[in-house]
């Protein structure tokens, strides 16, 4: 007779681990980004040393082609990344959730049309969609990049929201709520959103990571925020020519980018179960 205890909460511990690592990585990024508003190691716009210096005590990750401190560029890049991620997800979430919920309520025909449109939109890669939007707006700026990415995300969010909300709307507690006199808006706020939130929030975190990567790619292609907004993508692009002579210039922003994206994914993973009262109910 075995006497094994199933409650060794192994899954729970794994989640709290990914949650803490995720929180640490993302938290570090946030702290650094806020810090740059008040203080940076050096002046980001002017040279503070020789050109392409190797890492030293004065310049921890060396200097760039114009002699500017490279660490300063990277920490400002952290700020850009956060602004882009947050902005794009905020836009994507507000448009996407609204559209998705409307589609879930819509009549059969309208719903089908919306679903098909979203499917087509999603078939385009986010980056391509963003490039089109940026190209359509006459000047490349941080804000047009954010808007572009936000729109691309909103299609993905809308499709997910629609499916999730439909599932919830078929439950009897929705009818019970209606027959209790709750308005449709009340039903959405009280029942639909809380029930779809866990899945949505995980998706938001994933989209955040994707937006950061997409912005870096846009910048890499020269379609992102123009200088003086330091962006990891542009740093990577600038480091391209000197990747053999000064490899740190390419590695450092790459590490920062990967750390943030992985941090956001771990956070998403950890968040999945937090605040879910039915956590662990497997059936």
């Amino acid at each position, binding site marked *: 007779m075995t006497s094994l205890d199933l409650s060794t909460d192994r899954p729970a511990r794994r989640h709290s681990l990914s949650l803490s690592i995720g929180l640490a990585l993302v938290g570090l990024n946030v702290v650094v980004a806020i810090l740059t508003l008040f203080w940076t190691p050096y002046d980001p716009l002017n040279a503070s040393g020789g050109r392409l210096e190797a890492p030293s005590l004065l310049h921890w990750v060396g200097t760039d082609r114009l002699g500017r401190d490279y660490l300063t560029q990277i920490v400002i890049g952290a700020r850009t990344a956060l602004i882009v991620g947050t902005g794009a997800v905020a836009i994507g979430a507000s448009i996407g959730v609204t559209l998705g919920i409307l589609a879930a309520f819509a009549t059969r025909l309208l719903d089908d049309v919306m679903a098909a449109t979203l499917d087509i939109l999603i078939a385009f890669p986010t980056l391509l969609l963003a490039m089109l939007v940026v190209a359509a707006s006459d000047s490349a700026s941080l804000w047009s990049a954010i808007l572009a990415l936000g729109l691309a995300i909103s299609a993905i969010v809308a499709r997910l929201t629609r499916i999730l909300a439909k599932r919830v709307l078929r439950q009897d507690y929705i009818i019970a709520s209606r027959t*209790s006199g709750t308005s449709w808006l009340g039903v959405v706020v009280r029942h639909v959103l809380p029930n779809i939130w866990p899945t949505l929030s995980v998706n938001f975190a994933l989209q955040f990571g994707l937006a950061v990567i997409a912005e870096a790619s846009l910048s890499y292609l020269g379609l992102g925020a123009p200088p003086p907004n330091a962006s990891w993508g542009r740093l990577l692009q600038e480091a391209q020519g000197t990747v053999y002579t000064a490899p740190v210039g390419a590695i450092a922003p790459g590490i920062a980018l990967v750390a943030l994206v992985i941090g956001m994914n771990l956070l998403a993973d950890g968040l999945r179960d937090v605040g879910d*009262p039915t956590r662990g109910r497997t059936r």
Partner: protein
Amino acid sequence: MMLNLQNVNFGYSRHRKVLTDVSFNIRAGASVGLVGESGSGKTTLLRLLLGLERPSSGTIRFGDEVLDPADGAFMRRYRRSVQPVFQDPYSSLDPRQKVLDIIAEPLQSLRIVGPRKDAVAQALEAVGLPLDAMQRYPHEFSGGQRQRIAIARAIVARPEIILADEAVSALDLSTRIRIVELFKTLSATLTLVFVSHDLGVVASLCEEMVILENGQVVESGQTRDILAAPQHPYTQRLLASIPRMPA
């Protein structure tokens, strides 16, 4: 007359009729058992009475007003008077709400003033659940306990009419007796439409019964009379196939 159905016809799609020419009356304060085979249209009839669907022809009257789901002002008044209990207790409770919020929802939505927690506590007590249930979530309860939470929600706002869909079928007999007693006390002041396939419960709770077969009323009248001398072959078959306790 509390509720009156006149030649009500209904189908979810044009090709298939679910209810055909359903007519009957429900007096104020009556308790009416609605009995019929699975799929005979009992839940559908309750959906019509709740204003969730509209008859394709025929009328339903509440007092002397016509029940029209499109009439917002009427529906707001009507919702205050009518509360349902659903067939599937798990799906009728929001998994993310605490029991307190679930039961209090009618009070909140109907803007009924007064101490909410007390009303919820009373309702919980009436259905035989402990008060600490308030702070827990539906998944922490057994099937029968969830059913009682749903019943507590239906009675908390003191409606005039309760439309109960298999409200006691998930309950064991002793709990069922308790809930039937509760409904009996309530039905002194309340109109009760009680859908059930359990003739024993209907017999002990409802003075009147309506028997549906395939969306048609095949027999209706005093429960006692019908049970003593069922007229329609379907009713006879229904009575004959009830499993009994072994001697």
